[in-house]
C-alpha cells in the first residue's frame, strides 16, 4: 500500500514538489482570501498527520484530537487577545461580559515565549498523563476511542460554560496583531501561510523518519499483535504513548497556527463533531500512508467549503455516504485505489482491525489465543 513511498528519493521529490506548490505556486495564483482558506486546510492536515501516526500506524482510534487542537488554539488566542489589549489591560470580551479582571491563569500568556513553549508542551503533557492512565491499564480498542471522544465532549462543554474567561460559545476572535505584525496586512498573511506550509512539511519529514525507524516498526507491531510485542520484552504502553503524545503535539501546533489564519477559535471547532471530521479526511485519504491523510483532509475540507456553500444539506449526505463507502469497501482509503485497480480485487482490511476486534470482543479473543 505504501509502495510508491518506499524509495527515499521519492519522498524527497514529493516534499520538494509540495514546497514548490505551497511556497511559490499557491501565493502567486490564489487570492488572499483563498490563500487563507488553504492555510486553514494545512492546519487541519497537520492534525491529520498526527492521526495517521496514532490511528493508521498505532491502531489507536483517536476521536478527541479536537481537544489538543483546541488547547493549542486557545493558548495562542489568549496570547493574541492579551497583546492586543496592551500591557496590564484586559481583553475586550472580559470587559463586556465579566468584571474586566484578567484571571491569574491568563497572565503567563502575556509573554510570547511562555505561550509558544506551552503550545509545544501542554497538549503533549496532557496526552502523556492521560495515555499513561489508559494504556498502562491496557484499556484499548473501542474503550480508548470512547474515552477520547468523551474528553472532546467534556472540553467543549467546559469552554462553553466559562463565558467570562474563554468567551463561551462565541470563542475568541477579532485578533489584530502577532508579535507586532499586523494580521490584516497581506504581506503578513502570506508570511503566516508560509510558516504553516513549512511546519506541515517538517511534520511530514519527521513522520516519515519515524515510520522508517525501529520505533515505527514497533508501533506497527503493537497495532497488529500487541501481546507478542509484550512477550518480546517491550512495553506496548510506552510505544503507544509516544505516538499519542506526538499526535497531540501536532494537533496543538496546528491549532496555534489556525488561530491567526482563521481569526477565530470557538467551542464549535474543538468538540465531538470536528474531532470526528478530522478522522474522515484521514480515512478517505488512506490512514496507512504518509501523504494520504494530508491529501484526504485537504480534499475533504475543500469539498466542504465549496459544496456546503451551495448545497448545505447535500454536503452532509455526501459526507456520510463517502465515509460509509470508503471505510466499508476501501479501508486503505483513496491511496489504495491504485493497488485495488491494479490487482483487480479488494484488499483485505488493514491488519489493525482483527486485533482491535479481539480487544473489544471476548468472543474473538480465542483466535488471538490460537495465533499466540
Amino acid at each position: 500500500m505504501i509502495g510508491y513511498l518506499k524509495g527515499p528519493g521519492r519522498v524527497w521529490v514529493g516534499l520538494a514538489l509540495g514546497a514548490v506548490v505551497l511556497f511559490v505556486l499557491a501565493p502567486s495564483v490564489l487570492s488572499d482570501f483563498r490563500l487563507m482558506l488553504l492555510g486553514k486546510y494545512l492546519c487541519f492536515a497537520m492534525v491529520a498527520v498526527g492521526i495517521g501516526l496514532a490511528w493508521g500506524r498505532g491502531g489507536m482510534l483517536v476521536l478527541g484530537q479536537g481537544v489538543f487542537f483546541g488547547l493549542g488554539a486557545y493558548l495562542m488566542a489568549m496570547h493574541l487577545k492579551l497583546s492586543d489589549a496592551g500591557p496590564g489591560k484586559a481583553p475586550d470580551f472580559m470587559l463586556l461580559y465579566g468584571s474586566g479582571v484578567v484571571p491569574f491563569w491568563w497572565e503567563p500568556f502575556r509573554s510570547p515565549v511562555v505561550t509558544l513553549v506551552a503550545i509545544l508542551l501542554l497538549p503533549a503533557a496532557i496526552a502523556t498523563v492521560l495515555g499513561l492512565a489508559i494504556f498502562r491499564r491496557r484499556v484499548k480498542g473501542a474503550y480508548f476511542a470512547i474515552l477520547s471522544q468523551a474528553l472532546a465532549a467534556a472540553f467543549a462543554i467546559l469552554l462553553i460554560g466559562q463565558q467570562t474567561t474563554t468567551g463561551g460559545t462565541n470563542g475568541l476572535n477579532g485578533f489584530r496583531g502577532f508579535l507586532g505584525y499586523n494580521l490584516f496586512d497581506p504581506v503578513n498573511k502570506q508570511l503566516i501561510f508560509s510558516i504553516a506550509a513549512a511546519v506541515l512539511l517538517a511534520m511530514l519529514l519527521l513522520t516519515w523518519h519515524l515510520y522508517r525507524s525501529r520505533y515505527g516498526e514497533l508501533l506497527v507491531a503493537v497495532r497488529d499483535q500487541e501481546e507478542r510485542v509484550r512477550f518480546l520484552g517491550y512495553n506496548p504502553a510506552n510505544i503507544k504513548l509516544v505516538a499519542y503524545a506526538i499526535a497531540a503535539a501536532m494537533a496543538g501546533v496546528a491549532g496555534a497556527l489556525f488561530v491567526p489564519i482563521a481569526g477565530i477559535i470557538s467551542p464549535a471547532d474543538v468538540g465531538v463533531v470536528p474531532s470526528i471530521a478530522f478522522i474522515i479526511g484521514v480515512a478517505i485519504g488512506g490512514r496507512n500512508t504518509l501523504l494520504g491523510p494530508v491529501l484526504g483532509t485537504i480534499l475533504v475540507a475543500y469539498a466542504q467549503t465549496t459544496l456546503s456553500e451551495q448545497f448545505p444539506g447535500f454536503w452532509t449526505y455526501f459526507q456520510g455516504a463517502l465515509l460509509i463507502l470508503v471505510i466499508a469497501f476501501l479501508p486503505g482509503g483513496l491511496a489504495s485505489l491504485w493497488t485495488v485497480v491494479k490487482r483487480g480485487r479488494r484488499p483485505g482490511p488493514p491488519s489493525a482491525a482483527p486485533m482491535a476486534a479481539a480487544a473489544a470482543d471476548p468472543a474473538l479473543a480465542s483466535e488471538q489465543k490460537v495465533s499466540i
Partner: protein
Amino acid sequence: MDVVVGQLFAGLSQGSILILIALGLALTFGQMGVINMAHGEFIMAGAYTAYVMQGILGDAGISLLIAIPMGFLIGGVMGVILEAVLIRHMYGRPLDTLLVTWGVSLILQQLARDIFGAPNVDVGSPSWLQGSVEVGGVALASARLFILALAIACVAALSAIIRFTSLGRRVRAVVQNRELAETVGISTRRTDRLTFFIGSGLAGVAGVALTLLGSTGPTLGTNYIVDAFLVVVVGGIGQIRGALIAAFVLGLLQSVFQYSTTASMAKVLLLIAIVIFLQVRPQGIFSVRTRSLA
C-alpha cells in the same frame, strides 16, 4: 434533609435516563462488540415518533402510550436494517464499524432536518404527568417518576428475556463464546439480528421518554450518545446489571457534582472519576470471564 432527598431523586432520575439510553447499547455492544454511533439517532427517531403520534392522535395521554410501542418498533426496524445492510459485513472490524455508523448518523440527522425542519419541536406531555408528587416535603416531578418507572420496566423486561427465553439463552451463549455457540447449532446471524432489533427498539423507547423532559431536535441523539457510551464502558460488557449499576452511580455522582459546582464542571469531574475508576477496574464493573489475554 430536603436537599438530600432532592439530590437523591435528581440522581435517580438522571440515572434512569442514562439506563434507558444505554440499555440497548449495552446489549448490542456486549453481543457483537460493535459500537453503534447511530444509536443516538434511533433515540431521535423515537422522539420524533412521539411527535408524529401526537400530531395524528391529538390527545397527549393516549399518544404517549401508543408512542412507546411504536417508538420501539421504529427504532428496532431501523436497527435491523442497519445490521443487515452494513454492520453484518463488518464483523471483526469494530473501530471501522464505529466510523461507518457515524456516517449513518450524519445521514439520519440530515434526514430529520429535511423532514421535520432544523428548529426543535415540542411534544406536549399528558395532563396526568404535569404535576408533581410530594414525598417527605420534596416535590418530585411526575414526568421524572414516570421515566424512572419506564426505565425499571425496560430493565425488568430485558432481564427476563435474557434469563428465561430461548432467545436470551442464545444471546448469552453468543456473548460468552461466539464460535462455540455456532458449533452447537445456534444461528448467530439470527441471534445478532434479534439482539439488534431489541437494542435499537429500546433506543426508540428512550427517545419517546426524552420528549417528556425537553424539546426534540435533529441533534437530540448526539447530546446523549457520549453519556450512553460512558455507562457501557463503566458497566462492563455483556452484562445488564453492570450497565444498571453504572447508570445510577454516574447519575448520582453527576447530580452531586452539579450541586457542588456547575453543570459544565460536573461533566469534566465525572470524566475524571471514570478514568480513575478504570485504573482500578479496566474491564468495567462486571465482565464476562474469558481466557483471553486482552
